[in-house]
């Protein structure tokens, strides 16, 4: 498979292991979002793929070619930087043209003054100008080709950075938090545009972000990274509904998934504060995790006390506290009755949607009791 292949990459900064045996494959035309809290190593991984930093171990393949030892310029990768990294002294047109000028013009061609008179240079320059015009048109930048980056808004700069990346038709795109410097409204709009650009280019894209909404809305697959390791790579739906690690489950989703300490007895019955919850698993201490929207107020179930209500428009968040003292949040329809603070509640849930994790945070299989009886 072409695209980007990262295999067993490791990197240390002094005593700190920034990346720990990281492997990830971005297929041809695939969009993968690499998401994780800040400091988890995602930017380091991206810079290693770009060739700006070197790995201590492991290999990088781009388009099937081993580029581990190649320089950034020789990797056939384009990158959009968080700060956009536009050249402040060049116009928009010149900024977009840089990757082409560096590749198509010789060092002599690029000499000031003299370069204009070299044979063929004028033709090559004209071809570059045409490509720049085409890319600028596709991104709506025609009107500002002669301006300098300092005269542009944040959103416009971001487009110039995108234009500079796509003009080369590289084998792969890297994007390092490209939306983090935009305001909220612009971010939503630009999200769509980046996805469209990716579709049109059909190029393997690795997109680094700390924002789970971006990851879930834009990517074909999401890779969740923490403490220098990739914990899970899966489609947005799977990452949300079927996390394989407790850290993935708590990182993805807002409000945070509810976690309650539980235990499976020798008989396999899962009990929460001594009460069976209708699940069976391998004996041992467990964490029971439930999304806020998977809980409801019922006649029987988990005992909790209502504490506060937040109205969000399309839904209502009910903050409650489990008997053990752990907080529990429910997402209820706006028309649902809202219990007063201090009311004792019983919370019901669908066992099929409950997630169980063992003491090490690994996902364990949960069965309904009847199912187990069948086995």
């Amino acid at each position, binding site marked *: 498979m072409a695209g980007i292949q990262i295999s067993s990459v490791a990197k240390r900064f002094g005593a700190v292991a920034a990346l720990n045996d990281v492997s990830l494959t971005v297929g041809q035309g695939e969009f993968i979002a690499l998401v994780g809290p800040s400091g988890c190593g995602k930017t380091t991984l991206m*810079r290693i793929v*770009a*060739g*700006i930093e070197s790995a201590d171990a492991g290999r990088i393949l781009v388009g099937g070619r081993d580029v581990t030892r190649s*320089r*950034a*310029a*020789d990797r056939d*990768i*384009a*990158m959009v*930087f*968080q*700060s956009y*990294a*536009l*050249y*402040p*002294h*060049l116009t928009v047109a010149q900024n977009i043209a*840089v*990757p082409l000028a*560096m*590749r198509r013009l010789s*060092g002599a061609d*690029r000499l000031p003054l003299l370069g204009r008179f070299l044979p063929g240079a004028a033709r090559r320059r004209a071809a570059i100008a045409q490509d720049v015009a085409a890319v600028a048109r596709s991104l709506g930048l025609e009107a500002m080709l002669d301006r*300098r980056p*300092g*005269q542009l808004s944040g959103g416009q700069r971001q487009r110039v950075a995108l234009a*500079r990346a796509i003009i080369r038709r590289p084998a792969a795109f890297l994007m390092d938090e490209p939306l983090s410097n935009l305001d909220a409204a612009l971010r939503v709009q630009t999200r769509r545009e980046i996805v469209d650009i990716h579709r049109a280019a059909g190029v393997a894209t690795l997109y680094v972000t700390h924002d789970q909404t971006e990851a879930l809305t834009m990517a074909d697959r999401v890779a969740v990274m923490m403490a220098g390791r990739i914990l899970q790579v899966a489609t947005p739906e799977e990452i949300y509904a079927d996390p394989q690690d407790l850290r993935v489950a708590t990182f993805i989703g807002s409000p945070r998934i509810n976690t309650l300490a539980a235990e499976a007895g020798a008989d396999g019955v899962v009990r929460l504060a001594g009460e069976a919850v209708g699940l069976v698993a391998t004996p041992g201490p467990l964490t029971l995790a439930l999304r806020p929207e998977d809980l409801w107020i019922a006649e029987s179930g988990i005992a909790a006390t209502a504490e506060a209500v937040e109205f969000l428009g399309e839904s209502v968040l009910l903050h409650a506290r489990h008997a053990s003292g752990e907080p529990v949040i429910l997402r209820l329809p706006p028309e649902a009755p809202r219990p007063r603070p201090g009311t004792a509640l019983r919370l019901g849930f669908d066992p099929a949607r409950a997630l169980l994790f063992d003491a090490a945070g690994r996902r364990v299989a949960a069965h309904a009791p009847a199912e187990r009886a069948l086995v």
Partner: protein
Amino acid sequence: MSDAVLPLRRAAPIGEALAGLMLTAPAAIAYAVMLLLPTLAAVALAFTDYELGMPGFAWIGLDNFSELLADRGFAVSLRNTVIYVGIVTPLSIALGLGAALLIEAGIRGRALFRAVFFLPVVSLTVAMAAAWQYLLHPTIGPLNAALRRLGIADPPFWLSSSDWVLASLAAIGVWENLGYTMVLFLAGLTAIPRELYAAAQMDGARRAVDRFRLVTWPLLGPTTLFVVTITLIRSVRVFDTVAVLTQGGPNRASEVLLYTMYREGFTYLRLGYSAAITLVFLVIVLGLVWLQTKALDRKIHYG
């Protein structure tokens, strides 16, 4: 802005205005006595025939300046200054930039080399001039001893040769200035965002030269302009090394502007004539600053 608002904005509280005046008063008095009046007096002197120790003076209009134009000594002095500046400025800027780039390019030895190159800036110029005099001494100097050992039978007499004296002084000038330009360039280099270099690498700037042309040189533009101006002004001011080492000699070959002014004023006591030279010096300095402002407006400022 309406009339009703204007007085409110303009009238500062009396206390604040009073404090402002009191706090600036000492500086204002010192400024008037030590800078403003003497400068105006220097300008006025340039149009008189005042000589120290003479009872009176007369206004002679532009006579001093027409004498300057006819004075071969002054012409030589001006020419020497231009040659000196023409050697010292480009060389100390090129070497300072080179040193700064080399220091920035790695981690080892940063503090050490920065200190080494900067040492001449803080060293007593007069003392170091004496050291240079020994180093360049025609017969006992280590430089000529080394040249003789390399088979050059009669090496130049450096500071005592009218052919070599300006070049020798300029070499000392470069040695004095390169640490200063280096420090300014280092400050300019640290202000360039690291990500631009990463972007340049991704964009295909393979060689260090390409990255220098694409990122370093243009982004250093404002720093370079400033360094050029300040180095020009510093080297137009050359005085110490000439006063210590050559007194303008041999045969006026190292006569420079400020030394001529000093000699006319304080040796021959022709203050009027000396003031006229000072005025020429002032005009050159102002001209350089004016050029810098023009260039700054024109180009190198990226909004």
